[in-house]
């Protein structure tokens, strides 16, 4: 078991190093020149050269990379080229909306998808099952922003039930916070619901075919007890795995959702930064997203140690 943990930790570090290198190289190769953008409309070549020198953009690749890694080790993600604010502060300001959106989406998705998947598996092959599966495939197929616009047009513009855009911190009132997150969560959650429903159904089907389920039924347990008490417990393992994979999906979807609903989150920060070549922000954000993904997967893997006894033996 210790060997397993150590191996996982080591590979996590290696993966992060790869990500760091990829992220940094990506931006080093970018043809856009932030110096020209900073210098403004009526800039001279000399102005641009001076800005290059000030930002250290002329140093060789490895020197710039080394400098960057060194400051990373000190928790310094650099300073935004345009606003001169530290990247950590910019990200910190925008964590709350993204985190709120992610949480609400996860809650909505799990609350809807798990029961749907269980029911579909229990009645496998029936029209209900077909219906649920078709619905979940639909969720995969409609792009998030199309669905988002449909929701806005229906619920905000026509019916005026929910706000169009914006974010309210829940220190301003939990109900306001929730109201502004309902439409974005539903829009973003659809894909997630589709994914989790399929996974739950598939893994439930697997488990239901197992011998111990037949034993439980033979023992005379009510179907519901069999379903929830035995099947779901064991089916949950792959579902927990999918949460790790789903985090990446969520972050991608968050970018689009935040743009449409004007939520001041990290997704929008990243797109804006990429489009205007604000290197330090791009690097910082991609690094953090990857770190979250890697760490979540690490947590999931390590949790296997806790509830899959077979791993303990390796």
């Amino acid at each position, binding site marked *: 078991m210790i060997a397993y943990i150590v191996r996982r930790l080591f590979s996590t570090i290696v993966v992060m190093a790869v990500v760091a290198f990829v992220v940094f190289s990506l931006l080093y190769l970018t043809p856009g020149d932030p110096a020209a953008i900073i210098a403004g409309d*009526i800039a001279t070549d000399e102005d641009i050269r001076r800005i290059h020198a000030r930002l250290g953009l002329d140093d060789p690749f490895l020197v710039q990379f080394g400098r960057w890694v060194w400051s990373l080790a000190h928790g310094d993600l650099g300073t935004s080229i345009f606003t001169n604010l530290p990247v950590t502060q910019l990200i910190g300001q925008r964590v709350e909306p993204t985190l709120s959106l992610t949480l609400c989406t*996860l809650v909505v998705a799990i609350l809807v998808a798990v029961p749907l998947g269980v029911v579909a598996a229990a009645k496998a092959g029936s029209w209900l099952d077909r219906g649920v599966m078709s619905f979940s495939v639909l969720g995969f197929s409609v792009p998030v922003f199309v669905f988002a616009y449909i929701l806005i047009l229906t619920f905000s513009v026509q019916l005026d039930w929910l706000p169009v855009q914006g974010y309210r911190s829940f220190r301003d009132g939990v109900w306001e916070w929730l109201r502004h997150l309902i439409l974005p969560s539903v829009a973003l959650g659809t894909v997630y619901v589709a994914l989790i429903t399929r996974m739950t159904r598939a893994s439930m089907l697997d488990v239901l075919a197992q011998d111990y389920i037949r034993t439980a039924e033979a023992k005379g347990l009510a179907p519901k007890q069999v379903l929830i008490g035995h099947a779901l*417990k064991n089916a949950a393992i792959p579902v927990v795995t999918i949460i790790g994979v789903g985090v990446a999906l969520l972050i991608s979807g968050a970018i689009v959702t935040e743009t449409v609903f*004007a939520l*001041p989150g990290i997704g929008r920060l990243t797109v804006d930064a990429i*489009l205007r070549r604000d290197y330090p922000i791009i690097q910082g954000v991609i690094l953090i997203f990857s770190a979250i993904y890697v760490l979540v997967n690490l947590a999931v893997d390590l949790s296997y140690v806790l509830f899959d006894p077979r791993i303990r033996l390796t």
Partner: protein
Amino acid sequence: MNPCSALLRSMTAVIGAAALVAALSAPVATAQGQKVLKFIPQADLRILDPITTTAYITRNHGYMIYDTLFATDAKFQVQPQMVDKYELSKDQLTYTFTLRDGLKFHDGAPVRSADCIASIERWAKRDALGQKMAESTEAWTAVNDKTFTLKLKKPFPLTLEALAKPSSNVPFIMPERIAKTDASTNITDPIGSGPFKFVKAEWVPGSKVVYVKNTDYVPRKEPPSWAAGGKVVKVDRVEWIYIPDSATAAAALNAGEVDWWEQMPPDLIPVLAKNKEVKVENIDPLGSMGVLRFNFMYPPFNNQKMRQAVLYALDQNDYVLGIAGSLKNGHACYSFFTCGTPLSSEVGAAPLKGKRDFDKAKELIKEAGYKGEKIVIIDATDQPIVHSQSLLTAETLRKLGLNVDLQAGDWGTLITRRSSKEPIEKGGWSIFHTWLVGPDVTSPALNFAVRGSGQKAWFGWPDDPKIEELRDAWFAATDPASSKKAAEAVQLRAFDFVPYVPTAQFILPTAYRTNLSGVIIAPITLMWNVEKK
């Protein structure tokens, strides 16, 4: 431990973490009973220095927190703003300025002559008109803290116009220590003496900018007129909420989540028109001019006949519709100076104005000896005004049988690429589009795009000594009649040499809720005098 509870446990942990993060996030102060004006700006405020950049969003920010010595009013007259008295010596070589009483910076320090001088000198290093003035300047001297002089080498009749310049770059007055910053380094300290104070702690770049009323500001007594007159602030707090998606912005205004939308795409007027609580107005009397700029360094547009061919083929009416949506918000303007201003005329405009003549255009192309060279149009898809123009130009050139390559990017890429002096194969460009606000294009002094100063000119680098000569002649003209004649001469030459093609004049309407009053009619967005019920 069973997986179900593992799941529940992890969810609890995540929720707990979120609560922690939220608790640690910066608090938002909203006192009860405060009048808050919520405004959707035209762009995202990124750079806080209105001297190093000409970006209009930064200029608007400048008008919030800074003040100017002089200002231009609605009648194009120069009015004193921070200055109390001024006089010009008999020999026209010495100006003496005396500041008003009670002018203070946001940190409490009084505004002194030294601050003004340092600010003007920094501005003069960047601004085209300021540079011209600097050529004639001998020295700025502080007589005492409230009085200072400008000594000229030779008379410069545009001195006051320069100090009253309404649009980029505006000679805002900053504290001396900040104004001493190098002219190509962005300042970061937003301390000014203007009617609003910038709340840096609440600034979320890309999302929100916050200003509060400067209760120590002493406004002039006159009524406001453009940037001149009394700047009386009638709200407590102003929030600029950047919403990049226009559909979302329109919906937000409709729902009352914001009060004022600076520039709305004219196409969305029907969406807001249905709402009785929203008013759509054209408060900008001068509008903006679309620009099609050539690259003069490489074929094919280093050839004058090729550029003239475009004049015969381009239909301004198409561009008006493409940019402004209808003839209610735009019209053709066959002039290199903003239509509706004194120096504008249609002298020499026949090729652009008359019936479209594709045959003549094709003839010119043949005379130019066009050999099928690739024409690269750099486009910015995130700027609708630039984007529509690029698409229209691409189509027009294609109809002429030219080899067009429309390369998309975003505004940031366009700004970077247009500064490249490389040939096409190395990432260069042939054409880009942009627009200039009316006040920036009213005269040969302000219109930097019509100049022919070669490598020192604006992107495109046209080289025409003749147009420079005519421009200098305009500066020498002293009375309105000869000034107009000199401007016409410049324009005549411009339609021959074609430093760029004016594509249309358009006005982007502003929209605000009816509980706002006092919105100033001006070509720049000004937020004093606005009241919210």
